[in-house]
């Protein structure tokens, strides 16, 4: 009797489901292939970003070794150019601070700014060459290299003399080389961990069990890292903090990225371009297509429009940004506001539509 009733119930349920689904057209099926999107992100955007960062850091090391052998003005300039290339390459990898980059603390190691110039000078004089401690973060990484190659003198001749005739010249060069090795070690580890030939994080990133939308899924981690990067490190770090929005309205021009190199806007612009590329997925499937497939194409185009507006506001500023802030901070604040619009659209609207939770911590819901 019981079996009969259960069977009847299940049959009815199946019939009901069958009847309902055959009545609806299949054109509202989104048919979006999330795995293909992740593959595009992993293979065409993330891993290449780390690989080109690795190449540019290798070049940086070569340029520094050349400078060590022949301390000429020409080699100094080549080294300065190599540093700029590495900092530009970092802009493409910086939105991906999860997995390997997170475990080697790549962002904090490579790009903590503003630097503590007093600390760097002390460490140079005392021959201190340990890197990687929390205390040495603002005396290490790419910004410290920027100070060492652009900030220790007013002209390149003066800078060169700090590596040739200055009493600390050899110590300073050692510090420079030690810092580059530290950067290289971090970048190598992160890159190799991503590569299939190394730690194969890419394999995990693309695996089926991580293809969902929950907190630990690949897409969940990518979007959390992406949104967090945009909000805290691009909008705030590169524009808002120097403009004084976090310091009781007092501008902090020294807090720009690449203060000594003087190409802050160029870096921010490259970073925003990467943010846009991540949204569109470059030439292939991206978040924009995912939103469209879900029937939220309007949101997709609105995000793109807002990123473009932020980009044109940003391009309206010119380097050196620290001087712009001191002369007239208003356009910088306007740029910040333009960039702010994107945060809401990404953090609230987009994640909500995609069913992604913005939290970096696992928790129950109800």
């Amino acid at each position, binding site marked *: 009797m*019981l079996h009969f009733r259960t069977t009847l119930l299940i049959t009815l349920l199946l019939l009901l489901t069958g009847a309902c689904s055959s009545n609806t057209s299949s054109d509202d099926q989104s048919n979006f292939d999330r795995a293909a999107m992740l593959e595009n992100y992993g293979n065409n955007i993330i891993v290449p970003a780390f690989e080109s960062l690795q190449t540019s850091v290798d070049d940086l090391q070569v340029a520094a070794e050349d400078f060590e052998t022949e301390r000429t003005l020409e080699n100094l300039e080549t080294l300065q150019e190599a540093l700029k290339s590495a900092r530009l390459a970092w802009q493409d990898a910086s939105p991906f601070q999860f997995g390997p980059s997170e475990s080697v603390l790549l962002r904090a190691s490579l790009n903590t700014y503003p630097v503590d110039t007093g600390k760097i000078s002390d460490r140079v004089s005392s021959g201190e060459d340990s890197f990687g401690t929390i205390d040495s973060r603002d005396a290490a990484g790419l910004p410290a290299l920027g100070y060492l190659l652009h900030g220790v003198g007013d002209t390149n001749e003066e800078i060169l003399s700090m590596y040739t005739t200055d009493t600390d010249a050899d110590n300073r060069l050692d510090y420079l080389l030690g810092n580059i090795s530290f950067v290289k070690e971090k970048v190598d580890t992160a890159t190799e961990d991503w590569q299939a030939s190394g730690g194969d994080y890419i394999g995990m990133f693309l695996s089926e069990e991580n293809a969902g939308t929950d907190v630990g899924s690949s897409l969940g981690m990518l979007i959390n890292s992406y949104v967090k990067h945009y909000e805290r490190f691009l909008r705030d770090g590169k524009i*808002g903090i120097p403009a004084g929005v976090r310091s009781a309205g007092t501008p902090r021009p020294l807090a720009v990225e690449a203060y000594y190199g003087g190409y802050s806007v160029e870096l921010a612009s490259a970073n925003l371009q990467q943010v846009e590329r991540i949204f569109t997925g470059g030439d292939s499937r991206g978040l924009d297509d995912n939103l469209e497939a879900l*029937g939220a194409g309007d949101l997709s185009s609105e995000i793109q429009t807002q990123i473009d507006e932020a980009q044109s506001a940003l391009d309206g500023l010119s380097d050196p940004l620290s001087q712009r802030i001191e002369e007239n901070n208003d356009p910088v604040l306007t740029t910040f506001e333009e960039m702010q619009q994107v945060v809401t659209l990404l953090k609230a609207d987009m*994640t909500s*539509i995609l069913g992604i*939770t913005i939290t970096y911590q696992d928790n129950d819901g*109800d």
Partner: protein
Amino acid sequence: MIPEAIKKHITGRISIAPLAVFRFLFGFIMLVSIIRFAAKGWIYGLYIKPDYFFTFYGFDWVTPLGETGMYLLFLGMGIAALSIMLGYFYRFGIVIFFLTFTYVELIDKTNYLNHYYFVSIVSFLLMFVPAHRSFSLDILRKPSLRRNYVPAWTINMFKLQLGLVYFFAGVAKLNPDWLLNAMPLQIWLPANADLPIVGPLLEYTASAYIFSWAGAFYDLTITFFLLWKRTRIPAYLAVIVFHMFTWFLFQIGMFPFIMILCTLIFFSSDFHQKVIRFISSFTNFLPFSQPESKATDKKAFQINGSKKSIISSILIIHFILQFLVPLRFMLYPGNIFWTEQGFRFSWRVMLMEKAGHATFHIRNPETGNEWQVRNWDYLTPNQEKEMSTRPDMILQFAHHLEDEYQKNFGGDVEVTVTSNVTLNGRRSQLLIDPNVDLTVQERGFAHKDWILPFNEKQQNWFKNLQ
């Protein structure tokens, strides 16, 4: 005065077996939940790490007890759960469990979940019943405690409580977004399209509608099907299927299992005798004694005198509140999903997809200086996420910012917020009046008139929806 038919369900004498099994299973699932909670590192992440806690209004005195204190509190809670499960010093265990569990839930409303509230209530009710007088270690310790029969109310009130939970959860689903737009399931189901077998089906809009309507029907009717003997078994199968679905699809933790085990109380005494025999066959080393089936007055549990009137008044008040509290939202103007006034403690489960972004502005009225707050300097990501869509938490955080400013710099300060919130797929809109200085607004149960009204006509990002 009370008709016999109803009296039977209150004072009528019935087997203690369902109550004893309920106690055992509740203690068991609580023990598992606590171990899981600790293993996931949540004691640290939720109650030790944060610098600030969103207390409940009137419960500001509930604060975390520090690292050692919190671990000890959870240890005590775990031991209490074990004591409930085994029925060993049960009276003591259940009181400790209720107090420690509820204390933890009151520390930070960020972590509020309906199922935690449910656990608090069940443990509260369990304090008043003799659930340890059979199938327990207490009767070995003190054989005179042993009873075979209990008054029907000790079991039926749990059925009533469960019925209220389901019913109000069902009523809450009777809203246009849920029924007409299949929201938020239309967002949540396709997000699980990668699941094997059912995954592809979830991408159909029709699936969201079927799940929405079936869910509402389930919640509204399941209690009646469980109460009626002829539909009980299929109804219980539905309980299992429904809760396992929610477990697969949503990050919902232990709740499905708690409900699956608790609803067993609807089954007959005979069934529970079998469960006891079944469990005993595994845990022979624990000499549980089984209730006998013969009725003798001596073996029936009774309460008399003033104790009886105290307990009955407490329970009557409890159930009146259980009816009224979920309805208190009607005292507030506006859309409850938007304002969340009267939202908690009302069994509104899995009802909305809400996300927001709140930017706090601080202004020094003397200097005119204005700046923005980095929420993440004060809050964990989880706290920030929960806060940015909830007016009461936004207000609390604004007050906290004022306190922090005064502590560090002294002097007066104004705090305003730009909070964009998206609800069930709609374009985000301002939740709070951005011109209102939140430092002069008071906390409390009064209507918050600085919440901007919800624009019902707001564009939905989903093209097929209004």
